[in-house]
């Protein structure tokens, strides 16, 4: 079989491979190279060494966006996972209407980031008007919490589904055994259910972590970084460096920032893989 299959390799691999080279490998390689260049287009680039990186690391707006991203990520990870897990526990108790609740909580996931951003911008601005606070465009505190509420609204349903799948995999025999031994509901939750869904917890924590770090559409639509770049996350900061300024040095700076961002995300993902694997072995 191997021989026959090897002969037909071009048919099977080529279409995806060609598209992959166009859509990923070439842009990735060029991106890496251009981060060391001053350029306006790909063909018109001049090597400048690590100058772009020096700028990126000393740019206060980039550092600020990193801190904002981290602060956003920490709070949203905790809130999303707490709520999602609680909902998942409640929705695996055979309550009436479980399916309807599940459907409703999951729904915001299907709506795109740009649309979500505008829906919440309208809603939050109205709330702010009523309590006589400055609108989102001038209110970085509201922008921060607005982003967090938006992310919770969107992601809780998704994580809830993963937790439900995890909870349903806990064998009934274990829970029965615990109740025969006289365990209360809380004891069953903390001593049996939570340890048994540890792998779902790691998956969800790191999914929310990478989602928070890569967040772009929602950020652009809800606050656009206003006021004065104070609610700008890393992805948006890179985008603004590329496209919101004129002058031929900015694209190089942006590309260097993008490489730093990429390394950061890869590092987080590797960590995620390791953590998930080690938790799976324990079970």
């Amino acid at each position, binding site marked *: 079989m191997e021989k026959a299959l090897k002969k037909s390799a071009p048919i099977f691999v080529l279409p995806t491979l060609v598209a992959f080279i166009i859509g990923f490998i070439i842009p990735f390689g060029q991106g890496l190279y*251009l981060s060391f260049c001053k350029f306006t287009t790909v063909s018109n680039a001049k090597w400048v060494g690590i100058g772009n990186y020096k700028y990126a690391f000393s740019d206060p707006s980039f550092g600020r966006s990193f801190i904002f991203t981290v602060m956003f990520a920490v709070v949203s990870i905790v809130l999303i996972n707490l709520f999602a897990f609680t909902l998942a526990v409640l929705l695996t108790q055979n309550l009436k*209407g479980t399916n309807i609740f599940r459907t409703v*909580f999951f729904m915001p996931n299907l709506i795109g980031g740009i649309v979500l951003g505008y829906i919440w911008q309208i809603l939050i601005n109205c709330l702010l008007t009523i309590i006589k606070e400055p609108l989102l465009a001038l209110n970085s505190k509201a922008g921060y919490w607005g982003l967090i509420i938006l992310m919770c609204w969107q992601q809780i349903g998704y994580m809830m589904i993963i937790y439900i799948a995890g909870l349903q995999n806990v064998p009934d025999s274990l829970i029965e055994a615990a109740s025969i031994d006289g365990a209360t509901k809380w004891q069953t939750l903390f001593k049996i259910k939570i340890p048994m869904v540890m792998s779902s917890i790691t998956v969800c924590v790191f999914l929310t972590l990478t989602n928070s770090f890569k967040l772009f559409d929602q950020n652009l639509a809800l606050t656009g970084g206003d006021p004065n770049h104070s609610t700008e996350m890393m992805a948006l900061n890179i985008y603004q460096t590329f496209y919101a300024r004129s002058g031929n040095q900015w694209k190089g700076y942006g590309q260097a920032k993008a490489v730093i961002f990429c390394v950061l995300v890869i590092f987080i993902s590797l960590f995620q893989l390791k953590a998930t694997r080690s938790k799976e072995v324990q079970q």
Partner: protein
Amino acid sequence: MKKKNSIGSAVLSTILSILSLLWVYPVIMILLNSLKKESSISTGTVFILPNKESFVGLENYIDAINSKGFLQSLGYSLFITVTSVLAILVFCSMCAWYITRIESTFSKALYYLFVFSMVVPFQMVMYTLSQTADRLHLNTPWNIWIIYLGFGAGLAVFMFCGFVKSIPVEIEEAALIDGCNPVQTFFKIDFHMLSSTMVSVGILEAMWVWNDYLLPTLVLDIKKYKTIPMLIQYFRGSYGRVEMGPMMACIMLTIIPIIVIYLSGQKYIIKGVASGAVKG
């Protein structure tokens, strides 16, 4: 004991019901406001229900469809999503089958490259990708699916590989002995066995392509072609004063089909998302 339980579950159901109402409220709010007169929509009055004076029926919807180019955008979005997802399903499953069945350095290297591409954030390649697309003239709605196939291949190949491993090789060998060539074997046997994974991958990729904003914005010529997310962003960006009424109508027109599809296929969607997330 039993009585206490039933009271507890009644309280829980009530809390969950209230929470569900809060959950759908933002969408309901947009729906109600999209039925209001343009002059009655302002930042502070969004929570007020439409009344006799402000109610205009479907006027905003008609405006959005007639003069804001909604139908055109819908067409582009639909076409791009369908072609991209079809291409990803067919080509990536073929590629994944080859990678899993042939053990060579080439297929291993390819597999790790695909996995690597899943992790890389779009900002890393956004500029060079849009330049590459321009140079190869892949910058129209008719062939942007090639870009989506390339950039979306990672997740699809990864998920397909996981499933192909569980298909017994014996079935394929039997087909080969019966005179099928590899292409026939794949399409007559594996393609059908992969159908449940196809649904999962298809849903995940469709959600991504349909809602994607940045990639089409950078690749397509915004003056000629706007997908739905681009249209909504364009509404905000380029007008002096945002026309709230038609914009909310647009948002509703985007959400309604998604919700209808979701409600009719929610079993598959939720299952697809769960299995995709656990593997990813």
